[in-house]
C-alpha cells in the first residue's frame, strides 16, 4: 500500500517525476552508448582471434598482440599436426597493404591470406559471393560497409593492392578490424601482395579434437616449439584488447566519458527527487501525524526511487536498442554483450537509489509538528 501511495504521488507530480526519469534514461543511454562503442571496438581489435574458429594460435616469440606477431616457419605446421590432440592446423598470413582506388588515391587495408577459409579464420558472413571466390587465383574480398572508401567497386571488378592485380570475387558483411579495412584472399595471393618469403607465415591456427584440454595442448605445443609463442585463442584475444586499451588511451577516455554520463544522470536524479520531496514536505508531515513511522516514509520514497528507476530503465533500454539497431550496419562499432545489459540495469538502479538518498533523508526528517505551523 505504501508503494501505491508512492506511485500516486509520482503520477500527481508529473513534471518532477519526468525529470527524475530523464536522469535514469541519461545514465542508461549515455553509459550504454559508451559501452556499446567500447565493446564494438573490442570486437574490432581481436576480430581475427575471435573468428579464427581455432583453439590455439602459434605466433612468433614475444607476441604481445595479434598484430605484433612476426613470421614463423611453415614447417611448424607438420610438427603440430602430428600431435594426437590436434584435429586440424592451418597457416595464416596477414599484414598491412595499400589498396589503389580508381581515382588514384590509396586506402590502407589489412590483407588476410588463408588456405582453407571455410575451416579457419575465413569471413563469417557474405553480402555477395562466398568462400568459393577464394578459389580464383586473383580473388579477394572487400567488406560491404567499407565499399564507399574504396570508391564503390562492384563484384568482379579488377583492382590493385600493393601494385598487385586482384579481382573482387566476394563482398563480406561484418568483417571489420582495428588495424585497417579487412581484405581476405587465398594464401598464395596474400604472399604475393605482402611480399612474404616462401616457407613463412604469420601464425598457425590449431583446432583440437573434441574433449581435448586446451591448457594441456598449449603446454605440449610450447615444449615442441620453444622458439614460438603458443597461446589459446581466447588469451590472445584478451591480450590484444588489453594492449590497445593500455597503449592508445582508449581505456581512460571511455572510462571518463562513462563516468561523466553516470554522474550527469545521478545529479539529475538527486536534484529532481530532492525537489519532489521538498514539494511534498507537508504531505509527509501529515502522514507522520496520522501514524506513519520514519520507516514508512523511507519506504515510500524508496518505492518512488525504484519506480522511477524501472520506468527509466525501460525507456533508456528502448532508446539504446534503437541506437544499436541504427548502427548495426554502419561503420560505427557497436555491440553490447548479453551479460552487460543486466549489469547496466542493476548498476543504474543502484545509482538511482543512491541519488535518492538525499531525498530520503530529507523526507524522514520532516517533523509532524510542522502541520500545525
Amino acid at each position, binding site marked *: *500500500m*505504501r508503494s501505491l*501511495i508512492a506511485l*500516486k*504521488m509520482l*503520477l*500527481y*507530480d508529473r513534471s518532477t517525476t519526468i525529470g527524475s526519469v530523464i536522469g535514469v534514461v541519461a545514465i542508461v543511454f549515455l553509459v550504454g552508448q559508451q559501452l556499446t562503442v567500447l565493446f564494438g571496438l573490442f570486437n574490432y581489435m581481436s576480430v581475427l582471434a575471435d573468428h579464427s574458429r581455432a583453439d590455439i594460435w602459434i605466433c612468433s616469440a614475444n607476441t604481445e598482440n595479434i598484430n605484433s606477431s612476426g613470421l614463423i616457419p611453415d614447417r611448424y605446421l607438420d610438427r603440430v599436426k602430428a600431435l594426437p590432440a590436434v584435429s586440424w592446423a592451418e597457416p595464416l598470413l596477414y599484414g598491412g597493404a595499400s589498396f589503389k582506388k580508381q581515382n588514384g588515391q590509396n586506402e590502407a587495408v589489412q590483407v588476410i591470406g588463408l588456405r582453407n577459409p571455410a575451416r579457419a579464420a575465413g569471413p563469417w558472413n557474405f553480402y555477395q559471393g562466398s568462400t568459393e571466390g577464394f578459389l580464383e587465383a586473383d580473388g579477394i574480398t572487400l567488406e560491404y560497409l567499407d565499399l564507399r572508401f574504396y570508391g564503390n567497386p562492384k563484384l568482379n571488378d579488377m583492382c590493385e593492392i600493393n601494385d598487385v592485380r586482384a579481382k573482387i570475387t566476394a563482398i563480406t558483411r561484418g568483417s571489420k578490424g582495428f588495424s585497417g579495412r579487412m581484405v581476405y584472399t587465398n594464401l598464395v595471393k596474400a604472399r604475393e601482395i605482402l611480399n612474404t618469403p616462401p616457407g613463412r607465415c604469420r601464425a598457425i591456427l590449431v583446432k583440437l579434437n573434441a574433449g581435448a584440454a586446451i591448457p594441456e595442448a598449449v603446454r605440449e605445443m610450447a615444449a615442441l616449439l620453444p622458439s614460438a609463442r603458443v597461446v589459446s585463442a581466447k588469451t590472445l584475444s584478451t591480450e590484444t584488447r588489453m594492449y590497445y586499451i593500455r597503449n592508445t588511451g582508449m581505456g581512460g577516455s571511455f572510462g571518463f566519458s562513462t563516468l561523466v554520463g553516470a554522474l550527469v544522470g545521478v545529479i539529475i536524479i538527486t536534484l529532481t527527487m530532492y525537489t519532489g520531496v521538498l514539494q511534498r514536505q*507537508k*504531505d509527509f508531515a*501529515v*502522514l*507522520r*501525524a*496520522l*501514524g*506513519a*513511522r*520514519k*520507516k*514508512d516514509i523511507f*519506504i515510500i520514497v524508496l518505492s518512488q526511487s525504484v519506480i522511477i528507476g524501472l520506468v527509466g530503465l525501460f525507456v533508456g533500454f528502448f532508446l539504446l536498442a534503437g541506437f544499436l539497431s541504427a548502427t548495426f550496419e554502419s561503420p560505427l562499432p557497436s555491440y553490447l554483450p548479453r551479460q552487460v545489459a543486466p549489469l547496466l540495469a542493476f548498476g543504474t538502479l543502484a545509482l538511482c537509489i543512491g541519488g535518492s538518498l538525499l531525498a530520503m533523508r530529507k523526507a524522514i526528517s520532516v517533523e*509532524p*509538528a510542522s*502541520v*500545525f505551523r
Partner: protein
Amino acid sequence: MPEPILKMAKITRDFHDGTKMRRVLYETNLDIFPGELTIIAGPSGSGKTTLLTIMGLILNPTGGKIQIKDMDVTQTSESKRANLRREHYGFVFQLAELLPALSILENITVSSVIQGARLNLQQKQRAQGLLETFGLQDCLRLRPLQLSGGQKQRVAIVRALMNEPSVLLCDEPTSALDSESSQIVLDSLKNISRDKTRAMVMVTHDPRVFPYADRLLKIENGSVVYDSRQSQGSGAV
C-alpha cells in the same frame, strides 16, 4: 464521573529560539474526559497549539507525564508514538491537509494502510458509511482539489474518525472556512463529541466557537489561566 482518557501531569515544554532556551508551556496539569468537547482558547503564540501537539504525542514534553487510557506514553520511541497516534488519535487540521495525490477514499483510509497493512472490506465499508453520514457519499473517487473547503474539512473529520480514536484533536478546524461551512463543521464535531467513548479537544482563537464547548480552557503566555470545569475564572474569556 467518567475516568479521564488523557491525563497530563506537570507538563512543560521548552524551545530553543536560536539563542537561548525559552519556556513556551509552563507546568500544566490537565485531564481530558470522554463525551465532552473541550475547547482551548487563547491568542496567537499563547501555547495552545503546543499543548495540543503534546496531547497528540507529536511533540515530546520537556517535563511531566502524559497518560492515555492509563498507559504512560511520556518516554516512548518515535515508532511507538506513531503507532499510538494511529490507534488512539484522530486529527483535524486547520486546512484539512488532505493528500492531493490520493482520492477521497484513499485519503480517509490512509492511516489504516500507512504502515503497510492492506485495506480490508470492513474498513472500506466503514469508510463508505462515514462518508454517507457526512453527506459525502458521491465524493468517494474524487480528488481533494475537486471539493470545496467545507467538504474537505468534513472529509478530514471522516479521516479522523476512521480508526475509532479515543481522542479527537482539532486544530482551528473552522478558521479557513466561511460562516456556513463553519456552522456545518462545528455541528458535526459537536455531535461527535457526545460519544461517551471519545474525548474531543479543539484549539481556537475564535470566540464564536466557544458556545459549542462543554468545557472551556483559556491559555495565556504558556499557562492555563481559566478552566470552566473548575467554574472559577478571572474575567471574560
